[in-house]
């Protein structure tokens, strides 16, 4: 029989305001096994913890129940308290009477009743608890960064600088991400390439960093410190180690009409291409969908002109298996599709463009060599209308866009408007907005400069319709402050499209068993206190995959994620979780159900000799758990048809005892 102590916390008035803590400690004092029951203002305080320690010694307690906040907050605290008093830390159970009682109930009677029930459940469980001792697992001192945009680049550089090897996996032929496509960056207006490309070069030159470009992660197994990852290196039909990046093939390739995705389809590239001049790795890639040689076996021009002999039409996808201690998701974002926004005539007129297309139009390396022109006929635009919040901040019932604010659009639109007015003073620039949001260092000053010094016409109100008429764009909009309808004949309309997580994020989250929100942004372990960690141990978040972010924010988060990774990789061993599965071999049928559901590959089968009642020996196939690999998820225990598989610390018996205590 256990000797259990119950400690009810008031949490100031957080709990005591809605739960009668005295009634709870009185009620639980009579539960089976309970020999001591007390309540105190702040159990987590030094004084509260001392109360627990003294009670453990005085009453020779073998287990304790703390009725307090969520175990996510203070379970570790109370386990340490118990350990300090000589009690096994796994003889501690938390009854969450704050988040689950006082915070969700307004009525004292209901809150108290539920608190007593949860307390009884915890007591019932402690009665069946047994001391547990955690094992240790080694840490693979290598990190994987998934995504090679500015977030992934910064994270990788910081980890590599601390001396740990890092691999970057990027789906595109080059790292650089969205930032490589930008022209200038707010609020200082330095050229994106000028500040990004040195970092790309740093990545290429860093001995600790390997780049897997044109690659994707196809499988992730294992757990914190010990991930087994499979990376698919797609065939680029060019030998990476031989190609010098001279670009001759990309000039001679006869397939000239392939839409250039780097310029968002506004010009063409060849079937063999290097996305941009500063690409890293600077290696050509053949697009198998457009290459005549790969499709029909006719051509071979690139192979003929390649002096290095790097072309290999027979190259196959390659699968690489590697072990990692930590994984960083840096999968970034994309502007949403404009398909559902017909009112802005995006599909009808080439002169209606997205902001990212505008970036390419004003970029010296873009399709118009940096001259701002109307894509339809190349004329110089005189009237430009910027539309903000296209698909951002939509009503929750809207099927077109996103409920959230995309955060970066106000600033980049101010930048676009300012730069346009600066370079082409003859243009008239309108910006239609719902609100202008400019929190950030030097951000509001920047926006005000655009509006006040550069004469950008900011109009509060939304554009209702854009219709192409006689080669112009007729823009119908409302000016809410002046309370009137506006009709503007524009040459160019620029849509600030909402941004959304990259489509690769969801399958990646599934592989990582990392959680996501309804918008497919990765969820952080705690929105304020653990913003760069995923709730899944060993998985970290960098950049816009966690939520919309501008470059300064992305870079700081990337560095923070790197610091967390370095902290993990600096350890030689991780203390494991003793709550692992174990199989009762006498009951095990050897059916393999557990082996099939185990996401960590922790279960194997062994042939074992058993002595039968008739004194003969029979060999049976039984499950065996590798405790160092088991993460205690419990999937095997529910899959086991005979009840042979159980989870230490969460045994079926313990759970049923809790349920019984609640239902009694």
């Amino acid at each position, binding site marked *: 029989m256990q000797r259990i102590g119950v400690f009810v916390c008031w949490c100031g008035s957080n709990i005591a305001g809605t739960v009668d803590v005295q009634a709870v400690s009185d009620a639980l004092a009579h539960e089976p096994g309970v020999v001591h029951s007390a309540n105190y203002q702040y159990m987590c305080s030094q004084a509260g913890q001392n109360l627990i320690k003294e009670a453990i010694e005085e009453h020779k307690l073998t287990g304790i129940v703390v009725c307090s906040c969520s175990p996510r907050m203070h379970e570790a605290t109370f386990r340490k308290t118990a350990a300090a008093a000589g009690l096994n830390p796994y003889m501690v159970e938390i009854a969450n009477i704050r988040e689950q009682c006082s915070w969700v109930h307004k009525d004292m009677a209901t809150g108290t009743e539920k608190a007593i029930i949860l307390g009884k459940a915890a007591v019932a469980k402690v009665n069946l608890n047994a001391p547990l001792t955690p094992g240790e697992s080694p840490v693979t001192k290598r990190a994987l960064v998934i995504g090679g945009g500015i977030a992934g680049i910064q994270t990788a550089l910081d980890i590599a600088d601390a001396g740990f090897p890092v691999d970057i996996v990027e789906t595109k032929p080059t790292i650089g991400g969205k930032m490589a496509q930008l022209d200038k960056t707010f609020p200082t207006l330095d050229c994106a390439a000028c500040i990004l490309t040195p970092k790309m070069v740093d990545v290429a030159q860093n001995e600790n960093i390997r780049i897997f470009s044109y690659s994707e992660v196809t499988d992730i197994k294992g757990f914190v410190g010990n991930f087994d990852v499979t990376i698919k290196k797609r065939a680029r039909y060019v030998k990476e180690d031989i190609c010098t990046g001279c670009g001759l093939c990309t000039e001679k390739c006869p397939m000239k009409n392939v839409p250039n995705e780097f310029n968002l389809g506004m010009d063409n590239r060849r079937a063999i291409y290097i996305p941009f001049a500063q690409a890293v790795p600077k290696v050509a890639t053949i697009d198998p969908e457009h290459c005549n040689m790969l499709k029909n076996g006719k051509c071979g021009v690139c192979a003929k002109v390649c002096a290095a002999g790097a072309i290999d039409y027979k190259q196959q996808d390659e699968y690489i298996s590697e072990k990692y201690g930590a994984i960083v998701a840096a999968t970034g974002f994309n502007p949403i599709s404009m398909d559902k926004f017909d009112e802005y005539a995006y599909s009808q007129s080439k002169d209606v463009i997205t902001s990212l297309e505008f970036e390419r139009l004003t970029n010296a390396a873009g399709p118009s060599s940096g001259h701002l022109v109307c894509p339809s006929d190349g004329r110089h635009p005189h009237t430009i209308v910027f539309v903000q919040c296209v698909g951002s901040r939509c009503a929750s019932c809207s099927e077109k866009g996103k409920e959230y604010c995309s955060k970066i659009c106000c600033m980049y639109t101010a930048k676009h408007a300012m730069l346009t007015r600066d370079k082409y003073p003859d243009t008239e620039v309108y910006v239609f907005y719902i609100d202008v949001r400019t929190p950030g260092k030097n951000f509001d000053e920047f926006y005000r400069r655009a509006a006040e010094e550069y004469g950008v016409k900011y109009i509060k109100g939304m554009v209702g319709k854009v219709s192409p008429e006689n080669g112009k764009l007729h823009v119908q909009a409302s000016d809410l402050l002046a309370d009137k309808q506006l009709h503007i004949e524009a040459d160019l309309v620029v849509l600030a499209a909402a941004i959304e997580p990259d489509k690769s994020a969801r399958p990646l989250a599934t592989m990582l068993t990392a959680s996501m929100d309804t918008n497919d942004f990765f969820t952080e372990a705690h929105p304020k206190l653990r913003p760069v960690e995923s709730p899944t141990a060993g998985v970290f978040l960098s950049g816009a995959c966690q939520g919309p972010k501008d470059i300064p924010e992305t870079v700081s988060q990337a560095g923070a994620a790197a610091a967390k990774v370095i902290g993990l990789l600096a350890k030689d061993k991780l203390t494991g979780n003793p709550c692992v599965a174990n199989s009762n071999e006498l009951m095990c049928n*050897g059916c393999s159900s557990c082996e099939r559901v185990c996401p960590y590959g922790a279960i194997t089968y062994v042939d074992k000799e058993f002595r039968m009642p008739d004194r003969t020996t029979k060999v049976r196939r039984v499950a065996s758990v590798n405790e160092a690999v088991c993460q205690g998820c419990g999937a095997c225990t529910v899959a086991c048809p005979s009840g042979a598989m159980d989870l230490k610390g969460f045994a079926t018996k313990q759970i049923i005892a809790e349920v019984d205590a609640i239902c009694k």
Partner: protein
Amino acid sequence: MQKITADMLIEKAVSLLEAGTISRVLGWKKGEFDYDVTPYVFADAESLKKDFVFDDFCGANFSKYLVAETRKAEGKVLVFLKPCDTYSFNQLLTEHRFDREAVYAVGIPCEGMADINKIKEITGDGISSLTSKGDKIVVDTIYDGEKEVDFASVLAERCVSCKSKKHVAYDELMGDEGDITDSARFDEVAQLEAMTEDERFAFWQSQLSKCIRCNACRDICPACTCEKCVFENPESPVENKAISDSFEEKMFHIIRAFHVAGRCTDCGECSRVCPQNIPLHLLNRKFIKDINSFYGEYQAGAEVGSRAPLVDYTTEDIEPGEAVMKGEGENA
């Protein structure tokens, strides 16, 4: 009547025994009554010729017997498998319940098996002999003399809604191979689903209250091969759950249905052996129907080593919340 005769099977068994391919034969043995056929292990040609039978009353599925029989002695066991039995055979292999090398499986065609209860409904009690003649069964009774019943009209329910005439496992096949049939086996489940919650509860209460907890359904079930059954294990918290209230049988059958969910091949043995004639197969079929509609068609035992949807995960899997809503929709 069956296209294949007992003599043909005896001949096959004897020749395999003589060739030393097998050491014993799992077969049907004559019982006290013609409809009371018993599974039996024959060790020699003599006993086979004396007692081995095969007729319209040989419903027993031998797959499960292999778990214990293959452990008993050296040498291969010959087992005769009807098409539906082969699914259980495969499922047991998937679960590593016996050594495939210790078995010699002969697939035999099946014309469906008769249900003695259906015959008794027509002829009344006191049956002294049963003789199959073409599409008729001649029934001799001690009260009314000889009567004839149509074989088709007394087919067991599981044979009326037969899911497959095709063998999915064998070492040797006798007779012709059949096809997977387009059965209407979920019609009864759909009828239950169409009931209101109260009606359905009343239906199951009336059925399950007949249960005498003889455990025949569990003992015959090829999916119930645990070394130690949870209902007989005092360490298992399930044992006393099944005796927790006055309607204890419901927990026993519901827990059992959950335990075999995704592994049940719908062989129908549970309903065949139930002395109280409870349609237990309907519980299992409800699971099969739900699994099919939530995760796509899945037939347990169709192949060895397949991953049942309930112990597998794909990104296309239905969200649990959706499954609940779907279930409620069906019941509304």
